[in-house]
């Protein structure tokens, strides 16, 4: 990694890092909603006919594992706090 890249990361970290993390959090929530609507039947929530929703599968494939883990995770009251 060159000096310039290092410098860029430092500047990024000082300026926009918090911002982009917040934005990514919102995006993750929206993505999550999207997954429930389109591939909900994977978890037993059928909304779109699978014949059509299956077309989306290849594109969301990398997110599926994380999404399922997130959805199926046990939750307890400490979740409310965080």
């Amino acid at each position: 990694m060159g000096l310039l890249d290092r410098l860029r990361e430092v500047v990024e970290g000082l300026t926009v890092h918090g911002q982009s993390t917040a934005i990514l959090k919102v995006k993750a929530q929206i993505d999550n909603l999207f997954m429930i609507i389109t591939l909900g039947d994977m978890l037993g929530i059928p909304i779109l006919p699978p014949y059509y929703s299956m077309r989306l599968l290849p594109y969301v494939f990398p997110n599926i594992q994380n999404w399922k883990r997130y959805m199926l995770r046990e939750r307890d009251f400490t979740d409310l706090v965080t």
Partner: protein
Amino acid sequence: MKGLSGLLQENPGLRVFIYAGKGGLGKTTLSAATSLKLSSMGKKTLVFSTDPQASLSDVFEQNVFGKGEVKLADNLWVMEIDADKKINEYVSSIKKKIIDMYRLDALPKDIEEYIDSAAAEPAMYESAVYDAMVDVVSEGKYDYYVFDMPPFGHGIRMIAIADVLSQWVEKITELRKQAYEYGRVAASLKRQKLTYEDEILNELEYIRGRIVKFRDIILNTKTTAFMMVMTPERMTIVDTEKALEMFDSLGLKLTGIVLNQVYPPDLAKRPDAPAYIKRRVEEQRKYVAEIVDKFGKYLVAVIPMLNREPKGLEVLRGVAEELWKPSRRVEEYL
């Protein structure tokens, strides 16, 4: 009775004929006869069926199952969808796409299981059939399309939920665009690239298009004649009443009813007619009267019971003529 010719005169824009009703009433025969007549008038016609049983292959006495569009006579093509094969091909293409896109050796087990179980669902079968219907009609290669519908399952409710689905897809698209915006901002802040957002939006638009198109084909009364087949029996009367209620709730308008398998009335008048036949004709007459009373405004044609199985082009031509221009008035059956 106006017959199909009268129906076409009243609605010259008709391009699609759909025969619906419960099994065993003669949907396939009437579909075949309709297509035969339309094609004989020099119009390019496709008759389409999905049911591997009671099939067009039987009626036309030629194996056409799963072979795509097969030419049977001048201007007449037949297509018998092998829905299972279509689903299998579709599912394998999705699997292959995932494996290729992410350069995997094999699919993760849970994804494979999900795809396989979704493919085995009965709704999948109907969706595939309706999707094929949308395919051939949008292609627009033919002057007329005749559909031999499988007996209704839950899939027909797709019409009812088409609006809901289409709004859903719109909302999802919006959601996706939002995610895209957020992703884009975050990515540009972090100088990363977004992946597949455009593809997802395209797919969503495609899905919406298909669902809307299917609904339009079924619900457009200017271009589509939605026909029910009945026989003079208590069971079909009850069934049709129920179906009409269902159509109402789906916003689907019935175009016409074809009454099939009616014994010629003069049969019972002959002095040498056996009591067996007389009894049967008497019973049918009662139900014909009830049908005229209840569904008279829909009645397009009455097809007499044939003296043999409706197989082969020759026999079908007879049925087609009767369907096109009924030779008797409905009163003669009463």
